[in-house]
């Protein structure tokens, strides 16, 4: 470490690299923090955790007892054990007793990405509430057709304020905070939608994972989804081999990100080329639709809704787009973790050493900033996998029941996990030796004989 600082001083390494190395080192040393306790006010399992994106200071948690709470993770409210243990109590919490509170379990609680003045909670009582943080009042309320599993807002969005909501219903709805109405209804899934995630590279692209095992990519500016991930389509390595055919599809998909109409025509063209056996995923659609006239009558944008390809056997329970927006990680109730190349829509066949994943609830995944590690709740433990090799690099044992969610704070490299045992645990980089001296002296060997 000192050598690196020296190198940085002499200008041998760039500031970015230096920072990344430090961060990487700290991430490697993550362990259960003894000096930071979050005192959970929740009486039910924690379903959702998020640290605000602007300051990186306020942790928002949503729990099954219909309560949501906000913690200041920088400044402790009180100290215990001679100032060694910092207790973080919630700044405030809203629960059933609150006049605008949810009646049933809060499944998802997220910050408004632009500032900490608003936060959004989605609940099993079919409602999505938008709260004013400062007054703790509900400012907008959306009634959904079914239980809300997950809500998401795009952190990049500059031109819209849409909450994407995955519910029991087959349709994904986009709720507009500005108008208080549903802006879009995206249909294509055949079962409830467990997870929704905005792309980190384009403010228009939404990824959804459903109970039918499908992962669909939507461009909200046009009808229908433009990409359905298929687990049988795979590529080895981080980039698809440069072949002519895949190159064309790649062009089409990448183009589709930019301009939708052109990709539409491409898609139709590829369907006509079915006889030639250009066998990528979009062409495989046409095996299912039976009649020609039917196909013709269908709206062009709805074509891909006929695609029944699945990304997982069983439900897709978790999605996470890497920070650069090039890859998508998905977790399914088949206890698999898959890494998808967004550009090609292929499964990269990375074998993650998962043991077992919770299958009944959506799980919240987290990645490091450089997307080297992914944190996955595996039943009672949280595991950190190397994204590119799938090897387990760290295992966090601390919860006594299933873990539902985790959040990695980029700023101070801390991991927050919440589980069914009602605890929010903080995992922080282990302190260096010289920091440990100030602990009470009586944690020593005590051999009487």
């Amino acid at each position, binding site marked *: 470490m000192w050598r690196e600082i020296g190198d940085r001083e002499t200008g041998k390494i760039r500031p970015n690299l230096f920072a990344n190395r430090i961060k990487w080192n700290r991430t490697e040393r993550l362990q259960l923090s*003894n000096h930071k306790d979050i005192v959970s006010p929740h009486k039910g399992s924690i379903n959702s955790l998020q640290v605000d994106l602007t300051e990186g200071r306020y942790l928002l948690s949503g729990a099954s007892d219909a309560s949501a709470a906000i913690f200041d993770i920088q400044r402790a409210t009180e100290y215990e054990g001679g100032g060694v243990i910092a207790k973080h109590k919630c700044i405030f919490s809203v629960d059933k007793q609150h006049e605008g509170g949810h009646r049933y379990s809060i499944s998802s609680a997220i910050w408004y990405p632009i500032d900490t003045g608003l936060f959004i909670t989605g609940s099993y009582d079919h409602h999505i509430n938008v709260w004013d943080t400062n007054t703790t009042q509900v400012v907008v309320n959306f009634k959904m057709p079914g239980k809300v599993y997950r809500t998401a807002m795009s952190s990049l969005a500059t031109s819209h304020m849409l909450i994407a909501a995955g519910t029991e219903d087959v349709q994904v709805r986009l709720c507009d905070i500005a108008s208080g109405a549903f802006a879009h209804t995206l249909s294509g899934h055949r079962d409830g939608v467990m997870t929704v995630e905005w792309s980190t590279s384009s403010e228009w692209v939404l990824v959804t994972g459903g109970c039918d095992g499908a992962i669909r990519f939507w461009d909200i500016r046009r009808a229908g989804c433009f990409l359905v991930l298929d687990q049988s389509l795979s590529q080895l390595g981080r980039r698809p081999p440069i072949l002519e055919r895949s190159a064309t599809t790649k062009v089409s998909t990448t183009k589709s990100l930019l301009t939708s109409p052109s990709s539409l025509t491409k898609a139709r063209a590829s369907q006509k080329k079915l006889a030639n056996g250009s066998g990528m995923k979009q062409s495989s659609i046409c095996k299912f639709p039976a009649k020609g006239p039917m196909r013709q009558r269908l709206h062009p944008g709805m074509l891909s809704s006929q695609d029944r390809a699945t990304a997982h056997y069983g439900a897709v329970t978790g999605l996470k787009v890497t920070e650069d927006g090039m890859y998508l990680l998905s977790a399914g109730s088949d206890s698999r973790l898959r890494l998808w190349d967004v550009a090609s829509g292929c499964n990269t066949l990375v074998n993650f050493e998962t043991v077992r994943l919770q299958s009944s609830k959506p799980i919240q995944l987290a990645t490091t900033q450089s997307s080297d590690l992914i944190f996955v709740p595996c039943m009672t433990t949280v595991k950190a996998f190397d994204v590119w090799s799938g090897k387990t690099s760290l295992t966090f044992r601390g919860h*006594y029941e299933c873990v539902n969610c985790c959040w990695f704070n980029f700023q101070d490299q801390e991991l927050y996990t919440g589980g069914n*045992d009602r605890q929010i645990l903080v995992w922080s980089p282990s302190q260096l030796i010289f920091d440990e001296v100030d602990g009470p002296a009586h944690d020593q*060997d*005590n051999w009487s*004989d």
Partner: protein
Amino acid sequence: MEEGGGKVRALIEKATNSTQPEVDPRLLKAIKSVVRYSDSELRLAVHALMEFMKRDHSQVRYLTLLIIDQLFMRSKLFRTLLVENLDQLLTLSVGFRRNQPLPAPPSVATLLRNKAIEFLEKWNSSFGIQYRQLRLGFDYLKNTLRFQFPNLQANAARIQQERRERERRSKEILLNKFETLKENFSSIKEEIQSTIDEIGECLDIVRNTGEESMLLARLDDDDDDDDIEEFRSSELQQIRRETLEEGEKVHENSENKVVFDALRELYKLLVTKHLVSVQEWISVLVRVEVTDNRFRDSSLKDFIDIRNLLQSVKKKCEESGCSLPKATTNEEEEDFWEEGKIELNKSGTVSACNRENGDLAIVSEPSDSKITVRHGKKKLESEGVGTESSSPRSKLLAEAPMVNWGPYLDNWGSKRDVLANQRGLELESHWGRVDYDAVIPAEKIAELNVHATVYKEEQLEIQQCRAPLRKGGLCQRRDLRVCPFHGPITPRDDEGKPLDQNLSKDEIASDSGTDLVEAEQLARQAVKNVRARDKDVARKREIDRQSMKHAKRAKLAKIREHNEAVLRDAALASTSRSATAGEDMMASDSGNASDRSKKQALASMLRKKVTPKDRLAQRLLNTKARDATIRQLTSAEDANYKEAFPSQW
């Protein structure tokens, strides 16, 4: 390092392979000393211990947990390594996950759970600050799963607090009392003094009326003189002195009755009120803690003086005889008690008689009755005689048998004929003439009055089982030979440990040992006989054939050996005891018999105990019994049917 690792593992394995409720302290010490000086050993120990915790046997887990606790309280490295897997440890020791319950012997499993919870609490209270995992585990078990923690420290603190509170309160009370005493001291003193004065006056009055106060002193002088001058029997002297004293005492009569009444009142007041209150005040003064000791000391002194004074006055009063009523009541009480005793005795005998009369099974035997009669006579005679010399009478009484009360005692020993038709009333009989002179001869009467006794079993004090119970105390069951819960009844000490278990064991062992020795001697004798015979034969053969070669002789020897073996076997097998003894010898010869037995013990803990229910089930639910029942039922049904419809076939 490699072989060292084996060492700690082997030690742990040895320590956990036991059915005892404690880890062998020597092994534990060995483990600790091995682990103390080597970190790698400690790491290995952690792994080994976690492995043993996974064993499918609660006893092993329990012992492992005890070792873990020992190391946990001592080594920091051990703690840091162990808390990593704390959830697993708790799963295995507390068994809070439904899909991983604790393994087999249920009694040990509950013990294991309790111990684990207790340890977790202890660890949390001493190291919780350093280890978040401990806090988490404790919190989870306590607040989520609602396990009941023994709460040892809190309890101790609470008890301490309560005691302090009590002490403080009692001190306060004492202080209050002290304050009131300070205020009322003079009045109390005055009151007592006035009572004493009154008593003194009363006594004076009484003495003056008696005019015999001088006598006592003179008498004493007399006595002394007598003692010096001449010999008298001490008894007589005593009697004389008593009478004189008695005479000297002033007796209550109509004149001084009022004075005596007043004296009695005052005495009562003195004893029941003043003396008690003075005692109390003294104890208060002794216990109270005040900054200013002067008043306390002085008043204490005063009180002690007052007490002594009171006691002397009390004594005087008693001497003067005013405390008579109390004595009489005492006597009455005693009398009453004695009477009660007698009554009890009487009632007992009466009930016995009743029982005797009411009982149907009357055993009567003429010879026996004669004996009793004879003895009874003796007894009567002796009663007659006994007035003069008590010693022969008591001797005879000791000899005489007890005879129960009965109607036959009415005419005990009378050999008179009895008039049959004399009832003392003149009644006209309608059944014809009555012969008033009809006589029942004496023999007949004797026959009718034959003494009948009921056989009474000798009351045996049945021993209590006195085996120690799990909840404390001793088993109070009284069984003749075998307690159904604790096996054969043996004499036990106050703690319920059998007194002579070892002794009896030794005896048994020595018994079997002697038997064994006998058997062996027998075998040896037999072998010797056979060998002698063999030798004879061999000698003959040698004489016969001098040119025998060594090889042949060796062969012969081998045969002989074989014969010996066969014979020994036969001799040993002749008694069953000796056969088993032989086996035992074999077993003790083989090296690791003890090891095997230990393992069996561990396995035997897992074996299910056969309950009476099981046995009944085995009896009642086997196919044979079931078939029989079914057959019976169906046949009964058939019979019913046939009865109902006799004409149908």
